[in-house]
């Protein structure tokens, strides 16, 4: 931590300690390779989406798709549904994330550690887990709704989607707020307290204003996540369609690529606006550094009733999360949920017969993609933070976009771009690895950038002055210094790869099967027990691999780094 102290890391995107742009062949070559990868796998597919929306099946210029989106009531409803869901999820998720973080930071208790671990569960679990458990518990034959309260609750629709999305995405907001609350300067609140202000008054006039950028950021990030979500609308949306699911049906059901592309563009607009707002407006107004030293540990909630209430709410949420995951495990062992609750192992046997290949393929491809992501993210991060070259901002922006655009948009862009020469890679492992790479690049890149801001460039300069080449310095000085942040980035990349669905769903092929798509198929074919067993196995693999990776590289992936990565999503 001594190295970090001298670099205040004012803003994540302010270039620090960069010299003038000195062209050198090694740098040029690196730039060309990195720029080529980013252009080919992010910019090119997105360009395809934009252009295909205006081309009909015969390849003629045609605005029919956009006209029908603008004029047909069905598509207007879908657009409104999407925005409504995004807004509600963002508001509730941010509120819950804030409450959770505030409690964990300001109400110290022995439960803190456990509560924190529970909040991580939804972040690294497969996309259908929460929704399936919610149906089993709160659906028409739900154990809770029908079994305990004897009511028939229809969970399919907006209500179920909000429940599931809030529980899935609130941890993202939680991590943002946790980081901010730990680093907010305690002296301001202590001063207010010293001048006799009440707890509620301080909260309103000091704490909240300090956290405003965090609130705005969390709202925007959750809005983006909600819009991009495909798995939950498919499973629990019922007849409530959103843009992500409608564009998916346009492609897989109607084989109308023009409509699918046009719907994607409509989905892209609010997502991209939110992304740009978050990046250029919220981030620049940050009063506190996410990467500095923890300073805010000393402020506590004084009122015991308040403390109890906060803890109670958080424990309630955590208990709900735990209940959902326990339901998944039990569901995997139950013969037919709702009809025959006898225990069985037959579903696991079924998964081993049906899904072994998918599990192996997915794990293997995720393992291949993870270090590649780390390498690419580190290289881009290093170039962006330490070097000065034309197009630096564009490289950073486009790299981040691969993860920020909704997965369906990128997936559709991938088939449009890569199912024809010159780069014909559909049906191969390449396209899946490329997709993993692009989707988790922002996690790796943010980790690298945040970590690099903590490393004083003078250490690297000393190495260069002693005669080491740029590559040697990078390899022997920079990389070891930011290793733990890289590990954290890799952990999240791997979990994201294993559980990705919205983009990858378009790219499976006879040779390469993806576990999440197999789970969706099993659900659709009515093999709910097997689907749940499959989900359980996928979760176990993710947890085991994360544990193994942490162990392998040493327990250096401290919570600080994990936090930085997630806050950067």
């Amino acid at each position: 931590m001594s190295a970090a102290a001298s670099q205040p890391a004012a803003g994540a995107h302010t270039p620090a300690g960069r010299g003038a742009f000195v062209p050198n062949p090694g740098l040029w070559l690196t730039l060309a390779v990195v720029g080529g990868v980013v252009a080919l796998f992010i910019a090119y597919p997105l360009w395809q989406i934009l252009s295909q929306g205006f081309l009909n099946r015969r390849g003629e210029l045609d605005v029919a798709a956009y006209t029908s989106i603008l004029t047909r009531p069905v598509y207007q409803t879908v657009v409104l549904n999407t925005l409504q869901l995004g807004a509600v999820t963002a508001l509730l998720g941010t509120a819950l994330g804030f409450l959770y973080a505030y409690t964990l930071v300001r109400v110290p208790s022995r439960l803190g550690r456990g509560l924190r671990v529970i909040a991580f569960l939804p972040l690294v679990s497969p996309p259908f887990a929460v929704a399936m458990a919610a149906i089993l518990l709160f659906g028409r034959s739900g154990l809770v709704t029908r079994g305990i309260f004897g009511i028939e609750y229809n969970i399919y629709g907006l209500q179920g989607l909000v429940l599931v999305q809030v529980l899935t995405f609130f941890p993202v907001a939680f991590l943002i707020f946790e980081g901010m609350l730990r680093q907010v300067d305690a002296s301001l609140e202590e001063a207010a307290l010293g001048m006799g202000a009440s707890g509620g008054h301080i909260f309103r006039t000091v704490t909240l204003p300090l956290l405003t950028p965090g609130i705005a950021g969390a709202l925007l990030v959750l809005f983006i996540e909600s819009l991009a979500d495909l798995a939950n609308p498919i499973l629990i949306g019922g007849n409530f369609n959103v843009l992500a699911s409608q564009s998916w049906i346009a492609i897989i059901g109607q084989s109308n690529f023009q409509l699918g592309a046009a719907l994607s563009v409509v989905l892209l607009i609010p997502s991209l606006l939110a992304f740009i707002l978050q990046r250029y407006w919220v981030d620049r107004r940050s009063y506190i550094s996410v990467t500095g030293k923890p300073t805010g540990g000393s402020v506590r909630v004084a009122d015991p009733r308040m403390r109890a209430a906060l803890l109670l709410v958080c424990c309630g949420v955590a208990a709900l999360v735990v209940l959902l995951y326990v339901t998944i495990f039990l569901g995997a062992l139950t013969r037919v949920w709702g009809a025959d609750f006898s225990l069985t192992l037959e579903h696991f046997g079924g998964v081993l017969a049906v899904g072994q290949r998918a599990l192996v393929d997915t794990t293997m491809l995720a393992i291949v993609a993870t270090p590649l992501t780390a390498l690419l993210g580190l290289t881009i991060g290093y170039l962006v933070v330490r070097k000065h070259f034309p197009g630096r901002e564009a490289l950073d922006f486009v790299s981040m976009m691969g993860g920020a655009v909704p997965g369906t948009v990128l997936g559709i862009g991938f088939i449009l771009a890569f199912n024809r020469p010159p780069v014909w890679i559909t049906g191969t492992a390449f396209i899946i690895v490329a997709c993993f790479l692009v989707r988790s690049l922002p996690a790796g890149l943010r980790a690298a950038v945040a970590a690099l801001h903590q490393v004083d460039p003078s250490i690297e300069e000393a190495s260069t002055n002693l005669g080491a080449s740029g590559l040697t310095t990078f390899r022997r000085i920079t990389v070891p210094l930011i290793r733990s942040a890289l590990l954290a980035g890799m952990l999240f990349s791997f979990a994201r790869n294993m559980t990705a669905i919205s983009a990858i769903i378009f790219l499976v092929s006879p040779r390469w099967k993806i576990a999440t798509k197999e789970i969706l198929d099993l659900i659709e074919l009515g093999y709910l027990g097997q689907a749940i067993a499959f989900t359980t196995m996928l979760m176990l693999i993710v947890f085991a691999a994360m544990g193994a990776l942490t162990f392998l590289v040493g327990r250096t992936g401290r919570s600080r780094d994990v936090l930085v990565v997630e806050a950067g999503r």
Partner: protein
Amino acid sequence: MSQVSSQAGRLSRRRFLRLAALSAATIPVLQACASPPAAPATAPKADAPTAAPAKPATSPAASPSPGASPAASPSPAAQAAPAAKPVAKGSGKLNVLASPQLPWIQAQVKAFSDTFGIETNFVRKSGGESLAQLRAEGGRPTFDVWWGSPVDSFISARADGLLESYVPPTAAEIPTKYKDADGFWHGIYLGSIGWAINTKRLGEKGLPDPKVWDDLLKPELKGEVVMAHPATSGTAYTTVMTIMQTRGEDKGWEYFKALHRNIFQYTKSGAAPMRMLDGAEAAIGIVFSHDIFVSVEKGLPIALTFPQDGTGYEVGGMALIKGAQNVPEARQWIEWALTPAAQEIGATAQAYQAPTNPKAKVPKPEFMQVKLIDYDFAFAGANEERIRTRFLEEIAPAPND
């Protein structure tokens, strides 16, 4: 507070580099696996069947003198009994696009690859999805053979020029009405639309037991009927066609507008309503009878019934995909899949569709011994895209709460 010692730092750096090197080493492995895109580069392979006589060496048994005895050259006897020998010439690989239940596909694929030593991969997609995939790939297909979607989709695909004609010798055993006159597709099974009734739920709620199609419109059944979405499911499209063909299109649209008020949910796949029937989330599902019977066999309170005023049925088809990269293997599959032995595999994997080959044993004859309508496959195929889109845009989105 956590200054890493230089020794530890170097060790872990080495480990990190090893990881990086490992990931770099996987690239050539991936490259080796990436055969599909490489295939178009070796273009002559696509023409392999026509070029086959030029290379007699690979099939010593069949062609000692291809020109000498023209009468013997098609050798119907040898082909009629598909010998367990590898095909004459080809990649030894086959990609199958399949729609039936997973266990059946797996059993079928395993039997084929065991018999012929051909490495066979498959992807399961519903009928609508399969057609969409072929259209999307437009002449550059990932797959060689398409097996087991309702033939409505095959008729549409043929009209779009996505299929290749191939008449195997075994096709002679298939009745004329279950195959395309020009050999673009062949039927492999028959299945009738039925109703799955969760008797427990129906009884507990005191709901009326439906007898004819119009009974499904009763207001008491609000939110109790599940069917798949015709835009993505062949099953649902067969259901829509059943009504449209017996009542005419206008009356048909009226029927589905009315039925929509009772619909709990439109699922993506045809068999998916069974998930909600099994879990007692809904009382009635419109599903193929063979899919319903799986739940009956599980011992769940599910009854399989049929509308008394006539039900529709599907012929599950099979075709060679135009532009397929493994044509000899695909032909081998088609020839084999029409044999009685191949058509009896389904019943071993809980797939109770009736085989099209009269010589094959019928697992559940009663499923087809119900009142069937005179289903017009040509009409269904010709109007598929229009009707699916209209359903998606006008029927399904209407509010029904």
